[in-house]
């Protein structure tokens, strides 16, 4: 089977899974929908491996394969095809997406069992993976947009999975609206591309881009900025980031899948894919790098103070994607993609562990109420620790190599990028700090009541309630199920978490500078036409950067250790001393309030104005009312003629005759 056949199979399996579960959920017993979904993704992963192998067999410069299934539209020279592009970048993404998704599906089979919407969950998850793979495998902008939109829809469905929770549906809508803003950007960018190059097919556009756009031309900068709008909306970068923390309303596997490994990386992918265009618009690249770094710093600063477990991890995701965006904006495509991969591993691992902890806490997510789970949940503790180490970039973990490779490339670009690199390193220290803040607060210290219950063999149970607002709920459809599953007691969860932990540690071996450059080499053909193709920092420089990075992470960990273990209570003192700053950070730099003021309120006012004045008064009143009023007056005037009096009618008749005779008289004279 050729690589492209594998490509179609990659798409077909999740779609088949979706259809089987959607139509057959009533007859599938117990957990079968979960196993079917996992199996589908597993087969998709195997197909990705097959495609990768087949691709590797081919010579280096012939690794971009397009296969068309169907032509949507063809007018003149312009064709829109249902076609996939199988090349190293796409297959890399497919491997990461399908691999991590498979493990998350397995985890969810245990985590979500007992929930009344079990089958619906897996149908949505398969739909999501299908959309993501479609987005990645698309060979033209149309299919990219289709996949983009599907992913947005799937994310809405999954965030608002527990749909009877108002906070969840509000979060889903918020995510969807911001995604749509991104969609608009993407579509307009596609229009501009079509206008200038006459095609929407990747390979055609990239080949022609050099001739059509002079460097830093207004149009190409506009196109790239619009693509950035789309990418930033999906990846939750500044300024379109406000949906990500709220999206933690979804079940934990959703956070692991969408908001760690896949959807949020769907923003980094198009920047890498359209690197040809970006390199023709250095202004846009600079904007992207700056915003990526800004997000890095912003998210790290907020993660230090937030007290909801999942939200800390969400901000950490935002921050790490800032690194990826920075990477692909400075030309370090291989490094950026590598960080994407390692991040997928350790971040989804962290979310899975968080899910386990939250289950132990019977649904509560408040960091202030957790503590001392180390003895009660040993497996979760170890995996969480591994994930945190990788996140911090502790020496020799995968995160260490990937994050520092990005920063090494940034420094190598020189000039203003040095400032960005410095910020990146500082933020790395902060990252290490908040990662271990979590570790120490959750697992160290005095065991809380739930931990003690767990240790003694039982599990804490509270009345079901919304963790954010405390409203009580029931456990029927639309709300979380009554059961809580911790990793120590559910085999599928451990089976899923273990490989990720392993990969978080050893994946670094794929890209040790100077020794192995497996990722770089694999992705090389996709980026062969990049300006930065061969500008790699020297091995010496890379080693130096690695050392600096390692030091930063150790510094952060040590600080966290001092604050939380050696002298607990110090954090509270600092919080009181810097109360203003603390408030600023806890309110996420007041971005939500800013958007509410600038955008939501004016739109709401415009909407209510439209409804009151335009719709009610103008359209209903004036136009419709006016039209009917005119008709009514006219007809009542006409009605006045029908008096009902015989003699009046006779008079009218006579008048008519009179007129007629007069006419004939005059015309014949």
């Amino acid at each position, binding site marked *: 089977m050729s690589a492209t056949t594998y490509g179609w199979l990659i798409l077909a399996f999740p779609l088949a899974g979706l259809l089987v579960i959607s139509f057959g959920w009533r007859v599938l017993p117990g957990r079968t929908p979960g196993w079917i979904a996992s199996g589908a993704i597993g087969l998709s992963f195997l197909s990705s491996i097959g495609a990768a192998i087949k691709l590797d067999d081919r010579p280096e410069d012939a690794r971009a394969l397009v296969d068309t299934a169907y032509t949507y539209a063809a007018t003149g020279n312009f064709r829109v095809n249902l076609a996939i592009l199988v090349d190293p970048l796409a297959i890399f993404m497919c491997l990461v997406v399908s691999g991590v998704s498979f493990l998350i599906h397995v985890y969810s089979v245990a985590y979500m069992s007992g929930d009344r919407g079990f089958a619906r969950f897996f149908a949505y998850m398969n739909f999501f993976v299908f959309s993501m793979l479609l987005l990645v495998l698309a060979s033209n902008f149309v299919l990219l947009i289709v996949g983009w939109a599907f992913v947005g829809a799937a994310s809405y469905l999954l965030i608002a999975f527990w749909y009877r929770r108002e906070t969840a549906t509000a979060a889903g809508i918020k995510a969807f609206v911001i995604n749509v803003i991104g969609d608009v950007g993407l579509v307009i960018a596609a229009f501009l591309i079509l206008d200038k190059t006459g095609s929407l097919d990747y390979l055609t556009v990239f080949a022609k881009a050099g001739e059509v756009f002079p460097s830093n031309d207004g149009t190409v900068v506009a196109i790239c900025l619009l693509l950035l709008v789309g990418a930033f909306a999906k990846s939750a970068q500044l300024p379109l980031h406000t949906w990500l923390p709220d999206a933690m309303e979804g079940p934990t596997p959703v956070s692991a899948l969408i908001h760690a490994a896949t959807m949020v990386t769907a923003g980094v992918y198009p920047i890498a894919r359209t690197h040809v265009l970006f390199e023709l618009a250095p202004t846009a690249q600079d904007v992207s790098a700056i915003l990526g770094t800004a997000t890095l710093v912003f998210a790290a600063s907020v993660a230090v103070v937030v007290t909801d477990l999942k939200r800390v991890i969400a901000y950490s995701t935002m921050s790490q994607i800032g690194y990826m965006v920075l990477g692909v904006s400075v030309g370090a495509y291989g490094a950026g993609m590598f960080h994407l991969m390692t991040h997928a591993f350790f971040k989804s691992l962290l979310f899975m562990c968080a899910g386990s902890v939250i289950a132990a806490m019977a649904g509560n997510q408040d960091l202030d109420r957790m503590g001392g789970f180390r003895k009660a949940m040993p497996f979760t503790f170890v995996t969480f620790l591994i994930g945190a180490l990788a996140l911090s970039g502790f020496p020799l973990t995968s995160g260490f190599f990937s994050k520092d490779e990005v920063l090494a490339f940034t420094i190598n670009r020189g000039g203003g990028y040095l400032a960005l690199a410095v910020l990146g390193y500082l933020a790395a220290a902060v990252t290490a700090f908040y990662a271990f803040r979590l570790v120490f607060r959750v697992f160290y210290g005095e065991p809380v009541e739930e931990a003690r219950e767990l240790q003694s063999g039982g599990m804490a149970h509270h009345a079901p309630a919304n963790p954010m607002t405390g409203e009580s709920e029931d456990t029927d459809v639309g709300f979380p199920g009554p059961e809580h599953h911790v990793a120590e007691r559910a085999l599928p969860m451990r089976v899923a978490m273990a490989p990720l932990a392993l990969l978080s540690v050893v994946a670094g071996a794929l890209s040790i500078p100077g020794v192995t450059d497996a990722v770089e080499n694999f992705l090389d053909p996709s980026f062969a036409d990049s300006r930065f193709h061969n500008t790699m920092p020297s091995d010496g420089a890379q080693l130096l950067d690695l050392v600096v990075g390692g030091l930063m992470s150790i510094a952060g960990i040590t600080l966290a250790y001092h604050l939380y273990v050696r002298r607990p209570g110090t954090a509270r003192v600092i919080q009181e001393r810097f109360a203003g700053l603390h408030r600023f950070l806890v309110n996420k730099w007041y971005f939500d309030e800013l958007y509410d003021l600038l955008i939501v309120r004016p739109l709401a006012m415009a909407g209510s104005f439209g409804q009151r004045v335009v719709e009610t008064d103008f359209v209903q009143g004036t136009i419709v009312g006016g039209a009917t009023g005119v008709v009514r007056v006219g007809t009542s005037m006409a009605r006045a003629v029908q008096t009902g009096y*015989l*003699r009046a009618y*006779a008079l009218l008749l006579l008048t008519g005759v009179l007129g007629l005779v007069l006419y004939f008289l005059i015309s014949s004279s």
Partner: protein
Amino acid sequence: MDIGWFVVLSAFIFCIGAAGVLTRRNPLVVLLCLELMLNAGNLALVAFARMHGNQAGQVFALIVMVVAACEVVIGLGIIVAMYRNRLPIDVDEMSELRG
């Protein structure tokens, strides 16, 4: 006699009948005035028949007479029905078809 005289006479009778239809309130009298107008028409028809030497006009007038008879029958039937149902015998009161 010149035919013109007959036609002018017919015009006058017609207009007198029209005035009667417009002014009288008793439906019976209105019908009578209607008869006047029909007869005026008949007169004109016969006059023109004489003018052209064509008997078709007379036949036409005969048929008009038949039609007038039928119309009288129905009209009187309506008036009798009005009387039977104790409605006032006045055309101005019969205004239920007003829009």
